[in-house]
């Protein structure tokens, strides 16, 4: 079971997608199948933390099979502390995505849910692949369902937003692929662990490595996004179906930074760190300031996300151990909170058919549950102690303060305060104050059962993650650090040369 669990996680959504594609598009049938598939897959992902061995080095649940002989591409998957919870997170967000689409997607459900499930497979693939080509494959694959669904279900001009999204993320992956190919040409392997060892030997040309590292970083920074590469974010949040928007930003790029930039090129990452920290600092303030002035709540959420993701980038490029713990934990928090907010905003838009904040007002009396859950999620987002956002932010801020520089810590803290400002103001404008014309005229009902079934557990989780972070962080600390060199590469020159010889015979 331990060997095949990751393959099972990877293939179950794909199988679900095929089933959805084959069955007729009748009523809610595709939605039910998608829900079932995502619940089953979530169940599988829970197997990972249950059987994860603490303190054991290296990757776990590993499986390594040769896929293509020449050039040698392996189906090599495994998880460590870094990817463990991210896989579970993908599993957790999938049912939330289905619920968020339940009433919002009214036509072509079959296509929607099959692409939705393909997207799940692609995301699992990104998190578990330990072969750079396989990783790249899933990385690219994750763009396709997203782009098609944005184009099909966009609110106003889906095609434009989808093209923008696709070009923004596809073009930077061109240098990424060249960098991967260059690494292969120099070392004869696509394997993550082998490459890490080979790069650690210092035998590769330094200039080439810097370019390769830059190409990796650029692709990831667009995907996160990092200021000033965030051009696609607001349009995508605005146009994408809720289930897609909640997974589009953040974790894929941040994970890739941690694993494949900081993890693979520690020296180059160190060289880029000051730049990245500065960009993150600017991003925190820029995102928060723009979020303050948005009139549309999707755009507000987009700039809020830019600010919060920049904070995580700050944690990553602080290059401190605590900062990484905080960054990884904050990825989980951020995605969880964002998902809850997406479902809530989606619920609002479904009921009142507008995303203009000014149209709302005084909703708390009309939809009390929705308001309560919204307040909880907002408080978690702004980092109220006892809720999960606090732990991650605190770890990042304190590590920045002690390990990087006081100045940037202050900047980041200002950003956190500003985020409290816009979130609380948003809550006030949406739910309190005098009832708006629209709110008093509407007869919309409170949250449905499905939405409650997702959101209350999320709220509980936010509380638990805020009170007992060690449940998560212990496992997170079992990760493959960037400088660790494998024992087999103790005489690195030999290992490198022998593989190069194989590669040369291509």
């Amino acid at each position, binding site marked *: 079971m331990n060997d095949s669990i990751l393959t099972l996680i990877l293939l179950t959504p794909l199988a679900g997608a095929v089933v959805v594609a084959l069955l007729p598009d009748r009523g809610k049938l595709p939605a039910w199948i998608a829900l079932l598939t995502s619940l089953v897959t979530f169940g599988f992902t829970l197997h990972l933390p249950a059987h994860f061995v603490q303190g054991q080095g290296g990757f776990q649940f590993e499986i390594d099979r040769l896929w293509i002989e*020449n050039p040698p591409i392996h189906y090599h998957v495994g998880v460590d502390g870094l990817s463990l919870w991210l896989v579970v997170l993908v599993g957790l967000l999938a049912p939330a995505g289905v619920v968020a689409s339940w009433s919002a997607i009214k036509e072509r459900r079959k296509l929607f849910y099959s692409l939705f499930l393909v997207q799940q497979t692609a995301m699992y693939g990104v998190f578990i692949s330990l072969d750079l080509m396989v990783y790249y494959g899933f990385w690219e694959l994750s763009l396709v369902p997203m782009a*098609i669904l944005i184009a099909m279900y966009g609110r106003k001009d889906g095609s434009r937003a989808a093209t923008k999204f696709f*070009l923004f993320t596809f073009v930077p*992956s061109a*240098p990424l692929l060249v960098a991967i190919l260059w690494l292969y040409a*120099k070392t004869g392997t696509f394997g993550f662990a082998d490459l890490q060892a080979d790069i650690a030997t210092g035998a590769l040309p330094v200039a080439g490595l810097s370019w390769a590292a830059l190409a990796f970083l650029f692709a990831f920074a667009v995907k996160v996004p990092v200021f000033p590469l965030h051009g696609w974010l607001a349009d995508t949040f605005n146009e994408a179906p809720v289930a897609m928007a909640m997974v589009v930003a953040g974790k894929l790029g941040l994970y890739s930074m941690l694993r494949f930039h900081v993890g693979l090129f520690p020296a180059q990452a160190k060289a880029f760190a000051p730049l990245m920290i500065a960009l993150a600092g600017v991003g925190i303030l820029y995102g928060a300031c723009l979020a303050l002035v948005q009139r549309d709540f999707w755009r507000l959420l987009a700039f809020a996300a830019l600010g919060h993701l920049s904070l995580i980038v700050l944690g990553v490029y602080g290059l401190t151990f605590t900062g990484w713990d905080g960054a990884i934990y904050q990825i989980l928090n951020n995605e969880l909170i964002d998902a809850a907010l997406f479902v809530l905003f989606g619920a609002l838009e479904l009921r009142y058919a507008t995303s203009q904040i000014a149209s709302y007002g005084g909703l708390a009396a009309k939809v009390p549950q929705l308001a309560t859950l919204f307040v909880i999620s907002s408080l978690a987002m702004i980092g109220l102690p006892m809720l999960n956002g606090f732990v991650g932010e605190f770890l990042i801020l304190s590590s920045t303060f002690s390990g990087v520089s006081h100045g940037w810590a202050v900047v980041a803290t200002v950003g956190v305060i500003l985020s409290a400002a816009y979130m609380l103001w948003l809550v006030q404008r949406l739910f309190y104050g005098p009832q708006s014309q629209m709110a008093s005229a509407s007869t919309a009902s409170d949250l449905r059962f499905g939405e409650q079934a997702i959101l209350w557990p999320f709220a509980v989780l936010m509380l638990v993650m805020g009170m007992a972070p060690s449940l998560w962080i212990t496992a997170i600390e079992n990760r493959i650090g960037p400088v660790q060199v494998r024992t087999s590469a103790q005489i690195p020159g030999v290992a490198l040369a022998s593989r190069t010889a194989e*590669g040369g015979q291509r």
Partner: protein
Amino acid sequence: MNPGDSYRILPEIILTLTGVLVMLIDASLPRGWPRRSLGWVAAVGTTVALWSSLWQLSLPVGTGFYGTVETSPFTVFFHVLICGIVLVALLLALDTLPEDSHHQGEYYALVVFGAVGMCLMTSAVELLVVFIALEISSISTYILAGYRKETGQGPEAAIKYFLLGSFATGFLLYGIALIFGATGSTQVYEIAHALVVAPNGPALPLELAALCLMLVGILFKVSAAPFHVWTPDVYEGAPSPVVALMSTAPKAAAFALLLRVVYEVFPTLKSVWEPVLWIVAVLSMTVGNLAALRQQNVKRMLAYSSIAHAGYLLAAFAGIGSTGIAAAAFYIAAYAAMNVGIFAVVTVVSGYDEKLPLVKDFRGLLYRAPMLGSLLLFFLISLVGIPFTGGFFGKFYSFSAAVGGEAVWLAVIGLLNSGLASAYYLRLAFSCAQRPAEGDAPPESPRVGIALSAALFFAAAATLLLGIVPSEVLRASQTAAHTLRPPTEQQEMQPVTAKITPQP
């Protein structure tokens, strides 16, 4: 000549007989009788030729007919590919040619005769036979390009293609003449031997001129920039099933010829042709993609896209030793699968008389015909080069070869170009994914018969399999690449394939 020689051209013989048979039956059928069944005859003949070509693998590698044709894994690879493309193109035509067309017999016969020329082009090792093969294939395609005589564009396409095409063939022939003058032979291996023995002889200017002229002739056929000008007009004017064929099969044959010429005839001049092909590759990609961005007509857009793909393929020629050849061969196969596929879909959607030629006419296809729409998306995704499709591995191997050959910038330009290209592919994809416009009377749903379903199925399956389990085809292309090397060259070439060692 020994009696076993005819086995070496068995697929060509079978195809020729099929073509003759089709013409004879066509002539003896009374006027007005349906001629659709002739397409099935041609399809069966092509299938037999395909199998016979696979059977040729059991023959020892070698030449026949006094060293004019060769059988080797290289020729078999391209024979199978060409026969496969022709088969799908025939199936495609079966369901889309109008019933009342009384030239159907000619159509099928010409397709099969074209296949004879293309197959022979890949197996000939005597430049004069190459020339004849090229002419056989070209003349068939010239006629097929003008098959829609009733429109103004049909004859225009045919005449343009014919005039420019014969001009380009003239260049090739002139090149052959010059190389004959320089070395005293037109046989590939003898020329190669002569060039190796006297690498910098007094005839060097002559050899260089010959190389350049031959490159012009061949690059015209693969529609690489700057010899691409004919492509969009011809593709627009020719019927879509013909474009499905002529954008892939003759190009596959021409690339096989290019591989033979540069790697077998002129390996000694690698320092000359490599930079030339580098420039042509970059030009083709960039010109093709930039021009495609502006196109509203789907076929013109795909024409420019095929120019760009020729560029991606040429990037493989920067690879070291046989990696480049293998990558190029694989790319041709992947490109053929997805391009035939997309033209098949376009044929069905716009119809034979092309009532819906524009990108915006494809709007709502995913709603009108979900199956066809999904297939169109799939082929477009493959053309973009998304992983788990043939198009990705094609690009991957091609640029991998380029990076291995230290042409990192070529790979960067190529991949950025493929990013640029995604913009126009996506325009078509998103147009097809959009809700149909309100108020418009929806165009009638296209009719998809058995032959057409089979054609679409073959193309889609090939594109998918090349993306998921490319190992088999890759191994075949590597075997093919290893046989493409003159026997006398084996020792001299060895150091070039030496390992890539990391620099300290």
